């Protein structure tokens, strides 16, 4: 028998003490000591919430196995903590913020609704143009629209101009006509097999046919059409109107389940829209959903409205041959005219089997006699036209087009990390359009394959094993491309493995062409890793000598799951990993991501902004942030502005630094007789004194902004960085509560929060220091190098450190008075030093650079 794992023990030991605020509900004349006790309880809750949010984010990494029960319990825990937090603030402020409860209930109701499997109607507009969509917009516009927009945004490929009528519009259509109420009993009967899908469908479709489109939706669609017409330079454009339902074009294709209209005059849009909605509830679609395990509550239809492409030729590309996934070939089928007959399997077509590797050799080709083609009718709609005999036997794609298609297909596959089923068209100006990209289902027996893998893999020589840190899991193979200088990036070939000494944000430029990344130096929490994760490129960093052991052009397989690098390409391993259902496709992952939006996102960034109010809180994180801000304000207000408790001394610390810090002394933390203006030498509090000494150590508080290469940094990033980097130096006031052996320091520098809590006296056993840093970045995956720098320095100085996203928590305890004071001194220097570093942390190299600079500073004489 082995002992329970350490994780289990950690779990079991986790205290679930409920924090009580009984004492405080007393009169406003309550002593500061009691108020401060409340304040500390609020902070404890605040920390637990932040850690809980970070923990939830971790679960999305793919390393964890979690279930619905976890999501239920963690949401409940979050709600309990936030609820207590609000009670705490209201106790502290004597009920000033009761309206936070309304915000809490509003958010919590949304979360509960998500947990019950009733997706919350997405907020936003009724129509959105493709230019403003990407794959994260799936909830709003369905996967088909979202993937298409992503292909344009992320890969720069051409797609038809157009917009999506959103799922929000669908919900307003359904509500406006009171359809849900009528549908529920039918769904129920269908679910319990008291009604066939034909009967259910017939009833529902009849109601939808009789329903009215809300006038606001009509107006919005009309406006979008006008805008589209302007872009296209045509007063009445012809459109392709395509379904894009929730779940469609994910792992479940729903292929051919819903209506599509081709070459419809713009005037017909609303009529067609309603028909697509009707097709949502066709009997075959309902059956399909039942088989695939979708509930009828998970139904929402978005509709894509696209400029009709006048295709000279159209076709379908499978990036892998589904019948022979090991063979390393892709399939292309193409015919003259529009692609619909081909997709429906009703037309003769040219077939190609092409190697998946550059230079994309053609294995097979068969050119069919394509006697008919589907064309656009001048008056709208489509018609079959006879193809002239000489043209009928001609290949409908040129060699150059085939090459371009092959490259494009692999690019899309590499981006979505799964084999693709791509519909394309070539217009009369020979422009290639992507019309649709969705996962290709490959039927292989994964169980058998998996078990054969260890035997196959062991035949390949292992170059690295267990060296470095995995920054992004996955499997990738290709030729080694070693980068010495940034100029080399222009030569980077599609599908190569990027090998470099350091990580650099400039690699973002070639990330889409990369099958894997290996670096000698680097950290798994750096920005490089963030980008690798965003694009799911298998990445191992800090391998020490990858650039030396690997040769330019050498074929290797990177297994960033087992932390191994093999010589050669292990096709079986690649096929296996490509056919793996991505965790992103599981319901639980989607659900966790959805509830995290209500829990973990931070929208309230600026405490001086007008919307820094309870009713603007959209997430639990917002509430937590709000409460923290107001709790600090409350203490300062009571003790500094209106000195309630005559047993405390309060004043402003006078420093040569631009730092506004108010000290509240509970007992013997300041020299006798000091009032309002406090100089460092007045501080008797052991931890506070040491900290302030560190803060003002010469050289620590850099006033010279170091050179900021922000422009190039931002342009090398692939997505926009949404936080205000131009944060004001000082928003609001900072506060420290002290006594002789104790200090609690809360500092807000820019949008970053630092909190230090320390106790130092002669008794070693009770000595401790707690340091917490939280960056004000909105998204969990925008991890900060600054966090890593802080962690490095703190670890070097014997702190126990946890980094989760941009939350850094460090602890140290039970050291002698003198050593504890040096640690507080160090924290002072660190806070001053790292205050404005994040914009300068251009690459992972800077982490080391600034760690060294810091160490020099500490060695230098004070």
């Amino acid at each position, binding site marked *: *028998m*082995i002992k*329970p*794992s350490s*994780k*289990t023990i950690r*779990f*079991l030991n986790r205290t679930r003490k409920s924090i009580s605020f009984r004492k405080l509900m007393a009169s406003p004349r309550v002593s500061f000591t009691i108020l401060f006790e409340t304040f500390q309880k609020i902070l404890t809750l605040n920390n637990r919430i932040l850690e809980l949010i970070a923990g939830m984010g971790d*679960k999305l990494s793919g*390393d*964890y*196995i*979690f*279930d*619905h*029960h*976890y999501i239920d*319990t963690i949401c409940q825990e979050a709600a309990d903590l936030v609820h207590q937090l609000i009670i705490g603030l209201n106790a502290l402020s004597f009920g000033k913020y009761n309206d936070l409860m309304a915000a809490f209930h509003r958010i919590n109701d949304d979360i509960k609704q998500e947990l019950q499997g009733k997706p919350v109607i997405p907020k936003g507009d009724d129509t959105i143009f493709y230019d403003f969509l990407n794959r994260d917009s799936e909830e709003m516009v369905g996967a088909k629209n979202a993937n298409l927009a992503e292909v344009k945004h992320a890969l720069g490929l051409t797609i038809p101009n157009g917009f999506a009528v959103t799922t929000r519009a669908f919900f307003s259509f359904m509500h406006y006509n009171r359809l849900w109420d009528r549908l529920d009993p039918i769904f129920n009967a269908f679910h319990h097999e008291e009604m066939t899908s034909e009967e259910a469908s017939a009833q529902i479709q009849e109601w939808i046919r009789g329903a009215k489109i809300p006038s606001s939706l009509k107006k919005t669609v009309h406006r979008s059409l006008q805008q589209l017409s302007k872009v296209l330079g045509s007063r009445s454009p012809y459109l392709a109107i395509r379904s894009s339902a929730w779940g469609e074009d994910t792992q479940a294709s729903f292929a051919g389940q819903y209506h599509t209209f081709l070459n419809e005059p713009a005037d017909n849009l609303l009529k067609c829209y309603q028909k697509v909605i009707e097709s949502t509830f066709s009997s075959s679609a309902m059956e399909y959903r039942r088989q695939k395990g979708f509930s009828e509550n998970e139904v929402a239809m978005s509709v894509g409205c696209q400029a009709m492409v006048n295709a000279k030729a159209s076709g379908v590309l499978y990036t892998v041959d589904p019948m022979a996934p090991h063979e390393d070939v892709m399939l292309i089928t193409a015919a003259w005219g529009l692609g619909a007959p081909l997709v429906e399997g009703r037309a003769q077509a040219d077939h190609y089997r092409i190697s998946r590797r550059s230079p994309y050799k053609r294995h097979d080709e068969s050119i069919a006699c394509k006697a008919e083609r589907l064309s656009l009718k001048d008056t709208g709609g489509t018609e079959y036209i006879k193809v002239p005999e000489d043209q009928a036997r001609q290949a409908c794609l040129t060699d150059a087009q085939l090459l371009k298609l092959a490259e494009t297909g692999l690019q899309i596959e590499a981006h979505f990390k799964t084999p693709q089923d791509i519909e394309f068209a070539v217009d009369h100006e020979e422009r290639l359009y992507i019309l649709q990209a969705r996962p290709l289902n490959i039927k292989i027996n*994964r*169980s058998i394959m*998996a*078990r054969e*893998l*260890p*035997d196959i893999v062991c035949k390949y020589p292992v170059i690295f094993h267990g060296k470095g840190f995995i920054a992004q899991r996955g499997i990738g193979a290709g030729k080694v491309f070693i980068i010495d200088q940034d100029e080399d990036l222009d030569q980077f070939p599609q599908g190569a493995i990027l090998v470099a000494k350091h990580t650099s944000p400039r690699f973002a430029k070639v990330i889409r062409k990369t099958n894997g990344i290996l670096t000698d130096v680097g950290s798994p929490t750096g920005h490089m890793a963030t980008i690798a994760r965003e694009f799911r490129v298998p990445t191992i960093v800090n391998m020490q000598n990858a650039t030396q052991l690997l040769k330019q052009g050498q074929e290797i397989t990177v297994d960033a799951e*087992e932390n191994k690098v093999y010589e050669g390409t292990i096709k079986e391993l690649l096929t*296996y990993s490509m056919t*793996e*259902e991505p*965790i992103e496709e*599981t*319901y*639980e992952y989607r659900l966790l991501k959805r509830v995290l939006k209500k829990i973990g996102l931070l929208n309230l960034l600026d405490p001086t902004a007008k919307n820094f109010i309870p009713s603007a809180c959209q997430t639990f994180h917002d509430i937590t942030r709000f409460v923290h801000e107001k709790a600090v304000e409350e203490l300062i207000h009571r003790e500094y502005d209106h000195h309630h408790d005559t047993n405390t001394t309060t004043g402003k610390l006078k420093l040569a630094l631009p730092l506004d810090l108010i000290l509240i002394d509970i007992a013997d933390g300041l020299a006798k007789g000091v009032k309002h203006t406090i100089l460092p030498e007045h501080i008797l509090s052991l931890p506070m004194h040491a900290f302030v000494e560190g803060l003002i150590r010469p050289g620590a508080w850099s006033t010279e902004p170091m050179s900021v290469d922000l422009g190039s940094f931002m342009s090398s990033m692939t997505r926009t960085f949404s936080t205000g980097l131009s944060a004001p130096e000082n928003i609001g006031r900072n506060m420290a509560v002290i006594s002789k052996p104790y200090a609690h320091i809360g500092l807000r520098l820019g949008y970053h929060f630092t909190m230090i809590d320390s106790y130092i006296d002669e008794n070693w056993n009770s000595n401790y220091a707690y340091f917490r840093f939280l960056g004000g970045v909105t998204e969990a995956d925008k991890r900060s190098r600054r966090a890593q720098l802080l962690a490095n320095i703190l670890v070097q100085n014997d702190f126990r450190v946890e980094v989760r996203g941009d939350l850094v928590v460090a602890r140290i305890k039970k050291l002698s008075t003198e050593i504890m004071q040096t640690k507080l001194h160090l924290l002072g220097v660190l806070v001053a030093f790292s205050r404005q570093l994040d914009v300068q942390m251009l690459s992972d190299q800077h982490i080391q650079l600034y760690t060294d600079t810091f160490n020099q500073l500490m060695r230098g004489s004070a």
Partner: protein
Amino acid sequence: MDQKNSIRILVLDDEPIVCKRLQPALEKKGYEVETFIRSEEALRRFVEHPFEIVITDLKMKGIDGMQFLSEVKKIAPDTKVIVITGFATMETAKESFRQGVFDFLAKPFKIGEILEGIQKAEIKIRERRGETAPSAN
């Protein structure tokens, strides 16, 4: 890996997602895996053909995990049982170990954590069989 030498693992969890995620992760390590979301079916299968390793949830409808593992231990005392549960308390952990459980994990867990337990179990199983265990990679 040779069929007769391979280790067979039964996974029982009433949440399909756990089975769905565990199965490929374990198969990739060369284990033969069968998954169940109903304890009755899992037990029927176990009676028919015992497994070397059982991974089971605790709280389930019908036969719960505690009952299931005691049945398993009755049929095949050498089977190594790993409990995975979202309701981890000191009591359930103690009770599980009293029942002769090999390892106990609180959900959610990292794939690496459960693999560690399985590899330890595999070493014991192979020792018993008189084989040398493959190097745990």
